[in-house]
């Protein structure tokens, strides 16, 4: 049985925090935990296609949201994913007061630092369950 944790970012395109969520998840599934995790597109999840439902329903999922609207967490839960951790980008951002993180298109060096911290949190949770 596929035991990989599904990691789903919100990827919001309007704010730098959406980019942070996206990049942190990609770093996790490509570099940090490639054998223990994989990502699933949030928009694909929302289509409700059978193929993606089978990927999510009943599986451990970690969601990464860029803003308090929590789109990834809400939609993964609705689809039947077991959200074992909701990561909020802003919780990490708050510890870096006064810094500039970039734009929704590109992260600055400070943005990369925060992104790496978030990736670390995701990886830590994956290693706990897997």
């Amino acid at each position, binding site marked *: 049985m596929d035991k990989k944790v599904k990691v789903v970012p919100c990827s919001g395109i309007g704010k730098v925090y959406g980019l942070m969520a996206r990049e942190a998840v990609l770093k996790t599934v490509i570099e940090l935990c490639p054998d223990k995790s994989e990502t699933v597109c949030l928009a694909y999840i929302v289509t409700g296609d059978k193929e993606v439902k089978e990927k999510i329903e009943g599986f451990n999922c970690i969601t990464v949201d860029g*803003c308090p609207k929590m789109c990834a967490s809400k939609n993964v839960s609705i689809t039947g994913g077991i959200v074992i951790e909701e990561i909020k980008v802003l919780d990490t951002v708050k510890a870096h007061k006064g810094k500039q993180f970039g734009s929704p298109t590109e992260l600055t060096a400070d943005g990369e630092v925060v992104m790496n911290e978030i990736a670390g949190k995701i990886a830590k949770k994956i290693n706990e369950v897997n």
Partner: protein
Amino acid sequence: MLENYAILPCNGLDKCAGVISREIAIKLCEEAKNVMICPVYARVAEAKYNKIVEEHALLVIDGCQTRCASKLAAEKNLKISRKISVTEEAKIHHIELKSDLRLLKNENNLIEKILNGLNNTDNIVTPPYDEIHYLYNFTYTTFQNGKFIFRVPTNPKIYFNENDCWAYVIGNRARIGVTDFVQQNLSDILYFTPPDIGAEIDQFGEVGEIESSKSVFELISPVSGKVVAINEALVTKPDLINENPYESGWVAELELTDFNSDKELLIGFDQYFEIMKKKVEELNG
């Protein structure tokens, strides 16, 4: 002079104290800007008074120890700002109430003393802040620019300054906060620095700070007063201001110093809405 209150008398018909209660309520409404709530109508069709209780502090007048008016207010979940018991007042002023239902010299004397007591601001006992009921059934008018929606509440008890802050005034207290213009421009608000409890704030003085990754915004108080409460929820969830800057995102509560003077330099919904629209359009080109 006691003003801007909703008056709920007991209207007891079988005792002198009830007749006095009604007479006091009538005088308060005739002689000053207060509004009567009929207790009988309020019991059977309370919707008529929803807007009134939203916009006014509540004064309850009980005739006797049965306290029918107080019980009715509690039943309807109304917060009482001030309370008078005619029977208690008669004892305080050493006036004996007869069983007669007519208002003669003693009764009129008592009515005058009670009215003087109500109008004497030294005697106002302002309930602790958590007893003041800020009713939030606001209606809003909106303005959209691109995908962003800017709302402004139309409640006449909400006043604005041109620094995009608002004050919601109930009795001698006001809750203050920022408008949609501020929270939309700041985007996700991450930090909240509240004012100190007990701080004396001048009108247009600084009263706290909010910050996003884009910039810092210092709140400019629309009113003068003493800070009696802050919205503790904002300390851990400052994004409540983004969620609803007029309701769950209120910032601080002040005990007002001189609202009658402050009011002259504030604007209402009509004026602020136009100002805000212009600012949004200028910002977006």
